[in-house]
């Protein structure tokens, strides 16, 4: 039977990983290379790598890092941020991405999402949806790193994204992002019962038990970012928790793969 996936989300900013809180980036939490090596060994099921740099000039460095990182990643690697063209997707795939994550451009240009799905297959296209609750408690979709409010409700846009060819939804609550109080469970519940494609829950994990709540609300996969960076064997411990509580996850073992010494970072 298909297992629930545990996903680590890495936020890449100018060569380093950063922590995020309500979509603003606070402190740096180390190198992506270390995170990829450790999380691979510590039983992670998938990695989402997002380029959250504000400066477009850093994009070249991101491509360079992706090529190095993908050589050390033997779980699926989804890559997002700054994706606005089919050519960009093609390049990311040749650099070792297995899937791409699109957000702002998918809403601004529906035919782009449609074309990408036709060209690379729905399974390759993850649509990331960032959501904030308005004063009435409605779940509203925001784009451009949470800056621009759209006309879409989370449920409507998720349904539309599936129609246009999304293979998966990466669903983040901006309100919950970095608050360590757990996922927006109502949001997960609404969206995962609307679409027939898998939904990845994101934003707000501060305790392993939040993963349990995410799964019980209907998510096909649960993800976290900040919490994984601060403890030894973090992703394996999260897996241990889920496994011991009877969830259908891949075994929390150490998955050691012998690799050459990792490249030295440019300072």
């Amino acid at each position: 039977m298909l297992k629930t996936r545990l996903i680590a989300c890495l936020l890449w900013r100018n060569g380093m990983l950063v922590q995020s809180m309500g979509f603003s980036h606070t402190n740096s939490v180390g190198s992506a290379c270390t995170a990829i090596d450790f999380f691979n060994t510590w039983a992670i099921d998938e990695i989402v790598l997002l380029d959250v740099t504000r400066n477009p000039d850093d994009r070249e460095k991101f491509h360079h890092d992706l090529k190095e990182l993908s050589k050390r990643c033997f779980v699926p690697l989804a890559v997002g941020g700054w994706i606005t063209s089919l050519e960009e997707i093609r390049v990311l795939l040749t650099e070792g991405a297995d899937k791409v994550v699109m957000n702002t451009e998918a809403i601004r240009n529906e035919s782009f999402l449609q074309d990408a799905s036709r060209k690379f297959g729905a399974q390759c296209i993850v649509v990331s949806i960032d959501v904030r609750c308005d004063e009435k408690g409605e779940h509203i979709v925001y784009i451009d790193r949470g800056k621009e409010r759209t006309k879409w409700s989370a449920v409507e846009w998720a349904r539309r994204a599936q129609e246009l060819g999304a293979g998966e939804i990466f669903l983040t609550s901006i309100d919950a992002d970095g608050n360590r109080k757990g996922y927006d469970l109502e949001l997960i519940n609404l969206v995962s019962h609307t679409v027939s494609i898998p939904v990845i829950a994101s934003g707000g994990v501060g305790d392993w038990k939040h993963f349990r709540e995410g799964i019980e609300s209907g998510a096909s996969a649960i993800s976290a970012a900040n919490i994984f960076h601060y403890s030894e064997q973090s992703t394996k411990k999260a897996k241990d928790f889920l496994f011991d509580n009877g969830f259908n996850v891949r075994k929390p073992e150490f998955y050691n793969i012998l690799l050459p010494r990792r490249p030295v970072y440019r300072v």
Partner: protein
Amino acid sequence: MIAIVDYGMGNLQSVANAVEALGVDFEITNEAKKLQDADGIILPGVGAFGDGMKNLCKLKLVDLLREEIIEKKKPYLGICLGLQFLVDKGYEKGEHEGFGWIKGEVKLMEPDDPKIKVPHMGWNNIEIKKDSEIFKGLKEDPVFYFIHSFSFVLDPEEVDIITSTASHGLEIVASLQKGNIFATQFHPEKSQTAGLLVLKNFIDYCDTNSKC
């Protein structure tokens, strides 16, 4: 040398990264000469069946692959689309011809239970039905990464080539072997230790084969 066929589809680099991690000599190529010289051929791929076949035809690779694999019995490992191409017909966005080396079809997965999500995406157990060289040394109850919406339906007379199955609302073919032809619906290049072992087993098979 192992040739990884480049036909403009999917996660070629991931397959190359995995083969590189095993320390094996490989080339990503679509040149006839290199495919002819290779000890084994890996055809990876994620994407649409029709586009994939169109690209292979355009590069004049379909006949070349038949010659190398069916006539000269060169070891072949098809991954995902590389498995699906083996049949006569695929029904992903219209009807398309496959290689026709194995009797069967590729059809959209339609599980009866509406709670089962398609694409079949994530890690799943495989149930080994028959021993195969590529399973050597695998631990009990192995788990692999799957990502596909279409599945492989074999003609009843071919079912004995199935080496493993997986369950996702319905039983699907997870891998098969017909002589020198190996194929997996799952992605060994993205299935960590178990996956790298499958690739290594295939490469060892190619080595033994080329020395015979």
